[in-house]
């Protein structure tokens, strides 16, 4: 069933390994061991790596016992792993289906045939010909759960190659670190370890004494799970290290990069990963991008599993599951397991997608909307703040009122009625974008005027007024923040809702969409420079007015202008303050730490048409 071709397992291995395991308990020793594993059995003389107590190790162990050539993600419990491995793989009910139904052959992969073929030929070429001129690195990118690692594993076993993996070491927890410090073990960061690993690979290849009788051609190095980098410098180290690898490695190497979704906009990672990819490609690596798995493939896989598990789900339900997974097959399978587990208790799956006012070509969007509300197992879709703002500002609506007039619907006056949205409820969009309420309002305020027709002054006025309402709500609980956290939250959401709906409603004749850049609110910058100027004024107020403190407003409105006229202390005049404001603009970006994320978004993203 799951026996892999091309994997030779020595049955003595288990026995060999176990003693080594126990004999290598000494912490210090195992710390300094090389950190890559070979999933094939190895002679016991080679000391085991990565701390004999770690779970991954046990899993490796179990997979060895299981005679699996492929190393799996080790998320099943350690004991379980052993038990299951003892019996025959498929019967154990405790196993996660994701592991149980791991693809064993190229045919079982849900990944698109072409992609698989592409990777296969790439590896074949590298393995067959000893051509040192071509590069040896393949970068595989794609969102989580689209079968990147699985593809490599399957292809490797198909080609009869062994996989050498970089295993990210278990993170050192603080107590452990303290303990290690006391016992004299030097801490090496995971990035350091990775660098060492790469360095070794580059210099010596994978020459280990254990290679007996196997040709060098059948080794594939896999770097799944890049070390986490925090901050620019660390990232640059990682990048350089990988670049060196790309340039000098002689064995076929696959680097698997999981794309974080761009929407986690606060995060620095997505950008840096893009940068990393492009630099690797520039250095000569070959890049294959995986797309989310298509609905049909997921459905096919799910159906297969259903058949084997003998659970009867309707085609409709499977369809729904597939849609809800958003192209993430791992997620889909797990969901399926959940559904089957409490199948009797499950109420019939809501056939939520009855909302008819979605047009056909928006089917994918529809699936996203369905997943958010109606099912417990959907993958929550996320939107970038930017995307959400685009939706609000462009204010796309149906061309006619499709839903028609129900009897119980409100009758609204013509001037208050609007066509239905071409999107989800604004609150939901907001929620998906996890935008903070205040910045959302600020962004809308900054940008909305450009989306209002030149003649529609009334609309502009309505929108401005609604934004004012939102501002009122934002301000309501100022000062007593700590005690009324709950109320604060409700207010914030309400305010955001008012702002968004105000913008949507107020703009009664949305312009046909055209290209617009969404700007970062100038308001933030203005607030900052106003604050600075105020501090400046307050500092100098004694200079204005010898023996008494004057109000800031008095200084700003009367004393400072007068002094400017009088010509002395000219540096305090309005002009010079303007200049200081201009001068500050450049440093603003670095200063505005809390706004940085937003500013990053707005600086170079633009929306055209959604």
């Amino acid at each position, binding site marked *: 069933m799951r026996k892999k071709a091309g994997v030779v397992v020595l049955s003595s291995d288990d026995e060999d390994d176990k003693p080594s395991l126990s004999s290598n308990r000494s912490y210090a020793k195992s710390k300094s061991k090389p950190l890559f594993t070979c999933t094939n059995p190895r002679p016991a003389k080679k000391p085991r790596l990565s701390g004999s107590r770690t779970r991954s190790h046990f899993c490796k162990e179990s997979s060895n016992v299981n005679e699996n050539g492929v190393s799996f993600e080790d998320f099943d419990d350690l004991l379980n792993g052993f038990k299951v491995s003892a019996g025959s793989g498929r019967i154990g009910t405790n196993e996660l289906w994701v592991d149980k139904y791991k693809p064993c052959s190229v045919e079982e992969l849900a990944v698109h045939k072409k992609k698989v073929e592409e990777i296969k030929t790439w590896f074949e070429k590298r393995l067959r010909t000893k051509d040192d001129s071509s590069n040896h690195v393949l970068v595989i990118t794609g969102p989580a759960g689209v079968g990147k690692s699985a593809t490599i594993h399957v292809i490797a076993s198909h080609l009869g190659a062994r996989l050498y993996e970089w295993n990210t070491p278990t993170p050192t927890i603080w107590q452990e670190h303290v303990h290690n410090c006391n016992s004299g073990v030097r801490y090496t960061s995971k990035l350091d370890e990775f660098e060492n690993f790469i360095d070794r690979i580059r210099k010596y290849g994978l020459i280990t004494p254990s290679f007996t009788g196997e040709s060098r051609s059948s080794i594939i190095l896999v770097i799944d799970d890049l070390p986490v980098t925090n901050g620019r410098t660390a990232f640059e180290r990682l990048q350089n290290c990988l670049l060196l690898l790309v340039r000098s490695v002689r064995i076929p190497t696959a680097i698997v990069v999981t794309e974080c979704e761009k929407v986690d906009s606060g995060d620095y990672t997505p950008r840096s990963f893009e940068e990393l990819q492009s630099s690797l490609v520039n250095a000569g690596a070959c890049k294959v991008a995986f797309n989310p798995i298509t609905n049909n493939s997921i459905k096919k896989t799910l159906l297969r599993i259903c058949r084997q598990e003998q659970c009867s789900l309707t085609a409709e339900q499977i369809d729904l599951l597939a849609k809800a997974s958003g192209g993430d097959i791992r997620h889909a399978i797990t969901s399926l397991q959940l559904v089957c587990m409490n199948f009797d208790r499950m109420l019939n799956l809501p056939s939520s997608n009855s909302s008819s006012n979605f047009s056909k070509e928006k089917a994918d969007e529809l699936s996203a909307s369905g997943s958010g509300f109606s099912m417990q197992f959907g993958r929550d879709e996320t939107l970038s703040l930017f995307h959400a703002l685009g939706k609000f500002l462009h204010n796309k609506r149906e061309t006619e009122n499709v839903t028609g007039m129900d009897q119980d619907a409100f009758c609204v006056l013509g001037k208050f009625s609007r066509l239905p949205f071409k999107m989800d409820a604004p609150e939901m969009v907001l929620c998906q974008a996890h935008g903070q309420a205040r910045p959302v309002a600020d962004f809308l305020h900054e940008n909305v005027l450009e989306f209002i027709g030149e003649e529609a002054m009334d609309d502009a006025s309505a929108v401005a*007024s609604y934004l004012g309402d939102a501002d009122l709500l934002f301000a309501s609980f100022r000062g007593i923040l700590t005690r009324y956290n709950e109320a604060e939250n409700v207010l914030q959401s309400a305010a955001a809702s008012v702002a968004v709906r105000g913008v949507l409603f107020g703009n009664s004749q949305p312009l046909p969409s055209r290209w617009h850049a969404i700007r970062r609110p100038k308001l933030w910058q203005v607030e900052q420079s106003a604050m600075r100027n105020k501090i400046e004024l307050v500092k100098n107020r*004694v200079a204005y007015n010898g023996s008494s403190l004057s109000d800031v407003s008095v200084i700003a409105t009367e004393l400072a202008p*007068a002094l400017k006229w009088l010509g002395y202390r000219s540096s305090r005049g309005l002009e010079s303050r303007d200049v200081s404001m201009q001068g500050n603009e450049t440093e603003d970006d670095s200063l505005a730490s809390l706004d940085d994320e937003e500013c990053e978004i707005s600086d170079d993203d633009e929306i055209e048409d959604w």
Partner: protein
Amino acid sequence: MLWVDKYRPKTLDQVIVHQDIALNLKKLVTEQDCPHLLFYGSSGSGKKTLIMALLRQVFGPGAEKVKVENRTWKIDAGSRTIDLELTTLSSANHVELSPSDVGFQDRYIVQEIIKEMAKNRPIDTKGKRGYKVLVLNEVDKLSREAQHSLRRTMEKYSTSCRLILCCNSSSKVIEAIRSRCLNVRINAPTEEQIVKVLEFIGKKEGLQLPSGFAARIAEKSNRSLRRAILSFETCRVQQYPFTSNQAIPPMDWEEYVSEIASDIMKEQSPKRLFQVRGKLYELLTNCIPPEIVLKRLLYELLKRLDAELKHEICHWAAYYEHRMRLGQKAIFHLEAFVAKFMSIYKGFLITTFG
């Protein structure tokens, strides 16, 4: 030194504008213990001058020897300590500060500083324990919480210190504080009074004042004495000898607002609104208080407006001004007012002229 400071009356006897109040205050402090005082009145009416003169009356010339300090107060607020920096002006007998400078943390200042003052009470010459005076500016800008804590500390430490509060509008000071203070209303000086002061300064400076010139300055000053004296001085720098029809230089921001007003009158469109927003930002950057901007803008707009719209526009200005006070970000409301005006005015133009 500016004329505003140079000719500021030093004692209660020298006061020109509010002689009656000055006299009463003098009587008050010479005859008996001084109660807490709350001075209120519009800007430039002479509150501060009176307070300083009063302090001098109580403590003698020592009250004028002030030192400026940038003090940091460490405040223990339960789980954390807050550092607050505030400029104070203090002499041996009094401390002056504007607690509203620290924003919403003003309540800590109010409590902390009064406590501290109560700790070290000065002893006067007769060996009797004297009291210190705490002058608080801009009390109307204090947050509610701060005002409430002020009320409590006022009672607790009333033996050791006196408070002199100063604000523009007593309506924004809570009842409890108002009732604990002797309220002193300082009216804005009349134009005649302003003319008198200007003439007094002119005489001291040895200037020839053409007839009607001082009156014109007074008229332009919006009944603010400070404003009048400042304009007077700028006129002096600009052109001397004076001519009676000499232009009185307006404040730069006022010119700017008037420019905004004409922008608004010229075109009503979202695009123009956007431009106006930019100009409003400019004003706000320079710390011109948004209320004053709105007021001035209304004034400028009304000057150019048809009579039948004036009422409606005033209504909306008041509406948005109120919301601005309640709200957080002034620009939202300023802009909403401008947008409303544009919308109304555009409708008006269309109905009148087709």
